[in-house]
């Protein structure tokens, strides 16, 4: 599981993102027009790509794309997320 693949998947998921728009330090809630719908799309994308299901509290604990990547990797490796 590499963060570059994670970022590419996110950029492909949203119509208004272009390659290079997202970095590990990007604050995902600063995306243009951020709403609860974006949050659901992130969770569905992570579930579909990595078979990891993030709940609302876990998502709330994340600020950057890197945080999302870390919590996904932790859960993928069987660790309990702190949320």
């Amino acid at each position, binding site marked *: 599981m590499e963060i570059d693949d994670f970022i590419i998947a996110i950029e492909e998921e949203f119509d208004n993102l272009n390659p290079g728009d997202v970095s590990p330090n990007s604050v995902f809630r600063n995306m243009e027009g951020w*709403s609860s719908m974006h949050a*659901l799309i992130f969770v*569905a994308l992570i*579930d579909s790509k990595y078979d990891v299901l993030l709940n*609302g509290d876990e998502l709330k604990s994340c600020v950057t794309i890197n945080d999302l990547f870390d919590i996904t990797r932790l859960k993928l490796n069987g660790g309990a997320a702190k949320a």
Partner: protein
Amino acid sequence: MAQLRLKHTAVKAIYSVIPKMVYKTHDYPYFSEDEAKMFANTTGIIERRVAATNVTASDMCFKAAQTLLEDMNCHHEIDLLVFVTQSPDYFLPASAAILQDKLGLPKTCMAFDVNLGCSGYVHGLLLANRYLQQGGLRKVLLLAGDKSTISTHEQDKTAFPLFGDAGSATLLEYDAKGKDWFFDAGTDGSGANAIIIEAGHSRMPYQSFDDQDIEVAPGVIRSKKHLAIDGMAVFNFALKNVPKSINNVLDLAKLRTEQLDYLVLHQANQLITDSIRKKMNLPKEKCPSSIGNFGNTSSASIPLTLCSELSEALKKERLCLLLCGFGVGFSWASLLLSTHNVATKLLEYD
């Protein structure tokens, strides 16, 4: 464990009714153009049907049932009427009793409401089977419908554009030679607050609360008398429990996913149904969707999808179907059944 092998029941007809009035996602005045596009792309909802102010869920189910009974000419053989709804006509009496009279069913007919939402149709099929299985009753009329739009606040972007209204009627009868059905269900009441109308019943009677509108999140305005939905909690619940329940039914039936003709899921939203479908490794064509035209129609979404998407196949083919309803409660139920020569109709309510 709520897992059962069911015998001796056949589905004879499924009729659905939708209101004429169409609400399009792109016309929702509280969405920007981008929001409307994203909502439609994510939920799959292009438009939905909304019942007029004076039309209830029982009215839509009545039309479906009346047409079905006339076509099948079997009023006098209905021994049980079950009405699955979370939008009944009154606190009391049960709407099923009113429908028994309006439909001209015999006074020897049992009638009761079942207070379940998105999982309710599948639970209703189980109830019908339980009463028919011993051969004591002749025919069961299962009505499932909701007018969810009466409960949503127009300025709640998370709920108002999601729900549509619909009613349905399903006729079931004893069938000594019918193939076995397989059932699995569960409940997780810890999710009760994820889809809830807090006020208006015994816990919070109307006179006891402040029903002022509150902006609970940007663009999400409602009061306690309106339906509130936590989309993230619902998504997590569905992805955790629905694939497991579907697999439980397949295991009971000793079938593989690819042996199903169709998996018909409650039409919660496209993001959820696509995620479940992918987990089950099923192609799109085996998982029919009607949400684009009707939105989330709660207890009616499965029969409505059967009528709108599988009408020809239900009439002409022998089908192995897996139906799965899931949602408010949280509650879920899955049923694997065989069908043959099922009459269907999709009608509009004037």
